[in-house]
């Protein structure tokens, strides 16, 4: 096996062997000395080999230690705590924010997110033309785009990468992002096997055309989205599932040098990338630290330049941390909310659901639990573009009690006990969910006389229960994929697999459908506003609690190019240590 060509781990360097050999010799000598002693002392039994075994265990440990660490190579130019290990670095398979951030430097699409604003800016395509009806996009690819191994990147590669996402057998979780593309849904769901029916073309090597079903306000965001990044066909077909680990060609500003789970992902600058001159850090390490205390220790010890992962700050320390000058927060597209299972008889009545929402004092809750965040009466975060805000949820316990009485439960009498489901995921998350649950429990008992039992379960159990509607109330959150209200409102259509409330309303579906067909942005915003009002004020299958705040822990004097943006993406190709940051 060609060991050096494998990114999985490093073999011990040749320089290790002399030290091992020397150690081995030392043990050998000692062993002989002892044997000699034994030979001379006939009267006495040989000494137990405990000192020998002790030495041996240290020796073997030493060899293993050398083999498992010392050959890591030079220190990184930038060390980022990105979050837990990604499940994958294949753009097809990623979905979590830490995965998206890790894939971003490796594979690039037609566009890429601006490090400051996270808006789509030219990447593989230098420019694009949009037809008058905004249904046809023509991308002009740059001529100097090459893979990390050489070889030009052409529109054929783009076509392959987009098709790979839509191929039903690839089971891409994010495939529905391409719904706006003509014929994409039919191909994805297997209604047609003819890829020619999908509105994607590569007329020549430098041109890529996309035809949409109807104008799509966030289409360029999609072109910058990691799922649609360009991937190397030959390597994928040759190596199968493990391709990304086996030094394939990369299209982004970085190559994957090595990835050891639970340790680090090491990125090395792709010197052939068209923008290599503006990529300051040559080696970037993404550490996978799972313990918040360890993460903070490493940061305070200057072993980590930037922490991007919020649950990795111990929840107890957050108020303290918030006072530090190197703690930065910014608005991002994320909502923390409660799902209500409307298929439960107790929650089938919208009056009951509204009563539950009317008794939650979100300002108090946020102040006590998530002070960096913004209290939410809506599901679409304030920072979203193309967004018009309408009436939302309010705090009105008097009306809530009246609604409960109307629904037949005056003072909560006769109302069954509800179960509030949350997960015990790692980091500070579990503690946060628990505190939210306790606050809600108290509010509902006090204001409505309703008993709520808190059930905290393993993450996989929680997710399964939510999907199969095996819960009453459940904590939830959602991070926007693109900067448009659609990424939040679309969740609650009757066909969306992420609805998970059992709530269906044909009028809501119709409003979103009309919005997606509406070419006039102002009129579209009104349609979406009406849909949101219906969702949060009238039907209430969800109770939004707050809009998430993004966060970074970094000292601008030591590292620059770290920006907060609404998609919480922080491209590493923009970051660099300053002179003060270099130890």
């Amino acid at each position, binding site marked *: 096996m060609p060991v050096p060509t494998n990114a*999985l*781990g490093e073999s011990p360097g040749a320089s290790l062997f002399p030290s091992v050999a020397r150690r081995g010799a030392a043990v050998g000598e000692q062993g002989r000395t002892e044997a000699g002693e034994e030979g001379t002392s006939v009267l*006495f039994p040989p*000494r*137990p080999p*405990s000192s020998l075994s*002790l030495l041996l*265990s*240290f020796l*073997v*440990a030493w060899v*293993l*230690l050398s*083999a*498992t*660490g*010392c050959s890591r190579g030079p220190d990184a130019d930038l060390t980022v705590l990105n979050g837990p*290990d990604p*499940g*994958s*670095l294949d753009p097809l398979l990623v*979905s*979590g924010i830490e995965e998206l951030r890790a894939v971003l430097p490796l594979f690039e699409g037609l566009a890429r997110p601006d490090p400051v604003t996270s808006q789509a800016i030219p990447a593989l395509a230098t420019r694009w033309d949009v037809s008058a009806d905004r249904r046809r996009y023509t991308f002009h690819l740059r001529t100097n785009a090459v893979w990390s191994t050489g070889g030009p990147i052409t529109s054929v590669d783009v076509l392959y990468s987009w098709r790979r996402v839509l191929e*039903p*057998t690839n*089971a*891409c*979780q994010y495939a*529905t992002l391409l719904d706006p593309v003509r014929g994409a849904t039919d191909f*994805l769901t*297997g209604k047609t096997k003819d890829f020619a029916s999908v509105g994607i073309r590569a007329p020549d090597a430098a041109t890529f055309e996309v035809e949409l079903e109807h104008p799509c306000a966030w289409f360029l965001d999609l072109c910058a989205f990691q799922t649609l990044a360009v991937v190397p066909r030959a390597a994928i077909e040759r190596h199968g*599932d*493990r*391709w*990304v*680990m086996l030094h394939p060609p990369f299209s982004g500003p970085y190559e994957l040098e090595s990835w*050891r*789970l*639970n*340790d680090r992902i090491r990125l090395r600058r792709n010197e052939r990338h068209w923008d290599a001159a503006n990529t300051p850090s040559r080696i970037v390490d993404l*550490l996978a630290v*799972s*313990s918040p*205390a*360890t993460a903070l*220790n*490493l940061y*305070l*010890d200057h*072993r980590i330049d930037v922490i991007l992962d919020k649950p990795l700050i111990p929840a107890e320390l957050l108020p303290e941390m918030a006072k530090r000058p190197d703690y930065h927060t910014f608005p991002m597209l994320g909502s923390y909310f409660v799902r209500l299972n409307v298929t439960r008889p107790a929650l089938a009545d919208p009056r009951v659901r509204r009563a539950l929402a009317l008794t939650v004092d979100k300002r108090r809750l946020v102040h006590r639990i998530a002070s960096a965040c913004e209290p939410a009466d809506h599901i679409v975060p304030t920072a979203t573009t193309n967004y018009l805000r309408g009436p939302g949820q309010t705090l009105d316990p008097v009306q809530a009690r009246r609604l409960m009485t109307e629904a037949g439960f005056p003072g909560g009498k006769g109302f069954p006990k509800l179960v509030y489901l949350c997960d015990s995921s790692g980091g500070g998350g579990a503690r946060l969910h628990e505190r939210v649950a306790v606050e809600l429990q108290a509010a509902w008992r006090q204001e409505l006389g309703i008993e709520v039992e808190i059930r905290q379960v393993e*993450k*996989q*159990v*929680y*997710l*399964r*229960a939510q*999907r199969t509607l095996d819960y009453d109330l459940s904590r939830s959150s959602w991070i926007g994929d693109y900067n448009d209200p659609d990424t939040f409102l679309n969740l609650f259509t009757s066909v969306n*697999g992420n609805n*998970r409330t059992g709530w269906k309303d044909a009028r809501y579906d119709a409003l979103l459908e009309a919005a997606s067909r509406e070419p006039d942005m102002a009129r579209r915003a009104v349609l979406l506003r009406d849909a949101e009002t219906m969702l949060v004020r009238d039907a209430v299958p969800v109770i939004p609690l707050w809009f998430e705040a993004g966060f970074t822990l970094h000292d601008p004097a030591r590292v620059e190019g770290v920006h907060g943006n609404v998609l919480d993406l922080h491209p590493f190709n923009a970051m660099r240590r300053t002179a003060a940051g270099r130890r």
Partner: protein
Amino acid sequence: MYFLRRILFFVPLLLVISMLSFGLLRLAPGGPFDRERAPASAEIERQLRARYHLDEPVPVQYVRWLGDALRGDLGLSLKYRNHSVADIILQGLPVSLALGLLGFGFAIGVGVPVGFFTAMRSGGWADWGGSFLVLVGICVPGFVVGPLLVMVFALELRWFPAALWGSPMQAVLPMVALGLYFAGRVARLMREGMAQTLRSEFIRTARAKGLGEPAILMRHAFRLAVMPVVSYSGPMLADLLTGSFVVESIFQIPGIGVFIVDSSRSRDYPLVIGLVLLYAVLLLVLNLAVDLAYGLLDPRVEHE
């Protein structure tokens, strides 16, 4: 013959272990592909399950897995989908072995002398002080010792790095955090063994013969007194090699311990089975090795 029989017995044992863990795991609620983001459609979810053969009946899945495993293929991790189970084990196992052996060395290297000398100074202040420290070592769990060590030696004194793995300096604190409890156990065993031995007849005989005290202690007493430590060292090594989860997560060490907990939590079926089998083999082999060592050290033990 005895050992051949023991080794042959491994086969049905491992089969039963794999079958049980395979079945039990699938009884647990939730699956590997339950994510915040649901698959785009029911059809895509079906494709996803079919791709990893999760749509087949469990016995069929087991037979398929067994066939692959016999050919040395433990399959792909379902959580880390670019990594095979073998990759993960090969990456993490050497690290955990190194850590475990360092802990073992520390436990023996500290425990045996401490036990030895406290026994010799029985009743004196050295005995009291040593025994108290030993008791502290046994009673304070690793998740307290680890952070304390980091606080004092990494953040305050800055003698050692706070976490991560790769250099000998980084291995010191984890070694102590992992080995301290075991050093305490070893010291107690050693002290008791020594105290008992020193009271026995043959020591009196040796003294009557006029042998010097060092010879008595080192040659006669020590050899017998260390037997409990030897018999404990097998299970201890097994505990050290398999029980490094807490220390690994405190010091962010890329060993295998974290995966034991994490893989079952994320319902990563192939990885769980792979690790369960790995640990089963490890324990079986270590037990066998202890029995073997016993026979070598004590001629009275016969393997029949």
